[in-house]
């Protein structure tokens, strides 16, 4: 069974980046681990009423580290194929 989650997606040159506010608890672990430091707090609120994160897609390289370190699987990154 699948559960549909609301999604905020951002498109960039290297790929697409999505966050699911129904899963994001706003812990900020991804924000610290981003090698480009391109994640910042968003105005969209997460499941606990805390801010979710949003990327600066000009900087984002779609490396996927934020997706890996998210304990709640609230981030999905898809790298564009060359």
């Amino acid at each position, binding site marked *: *069974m699948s*559960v549909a989650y609301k999604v905020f997606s951002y498109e960039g040159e290297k790929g697409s980046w999505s966050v699911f506010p129904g899963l994001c*608890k706003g*812990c900020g*672990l991804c924000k610290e681990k981003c090698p480009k430091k391109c994640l910042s707090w968003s105005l969209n609120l997460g499941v606990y009423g*805390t801010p979710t994160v949003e990327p600066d897609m000009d900087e984002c390289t779609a490396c996927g580290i934020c*997706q890996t370190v998210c304990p709640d*699987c609230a981030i*999905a990154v898809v790298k564009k194929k060359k």
Partner: protein
Amino acid sequence: MTTVPQMPKSWRLESKPHKFCPGCGHGLVLKALGEVIDELGIQDRVAFGCDIGCSLLAWDFFNVDTVQTHHGRTTPVMTGLKRANPDIVCIAYMGDGGGYAIGSQHLVNAAARNERITAILVNNCNYAMTGGQMAPTTLPGMKTETTPYGRDVEQTGYPTQGPEMVAAITREGAYVARGTIANLKQLKSYLKKALENQMAGNGFSFVEALSTCPTNWRTNAKDTWAFVEKEMPKYFKVGEIKNPAVKEGE
């Protein structure tokens, strides 16, 4: 474009978002475990036992058979299941309070008997569910609810080093390792080897995972990473301690 969360297949979607605090390391350990269960394709024959403490919040985490027990008893319960039906893969999941303090007798005896189960112990340096009291794994000088001036090793002794203890009392065939959520790839490989060691029937498999507790450490994301990456490995050395695939002296 992806619009579905990239969760392991064995996760139970209906129970997400899970009940752990924001930034809790349990989510990452269970994500690694879920991916390993998917890769090995053993979802239909895993029995997952969680202990009391924060680890019990994993009781509806997976779409696998789950049982919840108290105070380290998850190890003997899983031992019983394994003896009754050797085909199933038994995972005893516990925290450092349940495994090293209240339930250490079960862990020690299961290890000494070399039971063919996998025990996963998540170490976050305190009793998190009851509000962050000092646990056997609290680092020297670390401030908790019951050690407001820092843990005094003269009075309360030094932290328990579980994998070293288990490695010392187990015989051949045991797998013992310590991973950390700061290195998820390595942690995942340890969990995979631990499960494979059990499935091969070699012996007791034990993995300790260094984890985070931002709520009780009172840290923000930056300090949480700094503590788990820099402070904890100083005392708790990360790596494989016992691996039956690697012969002694090589």
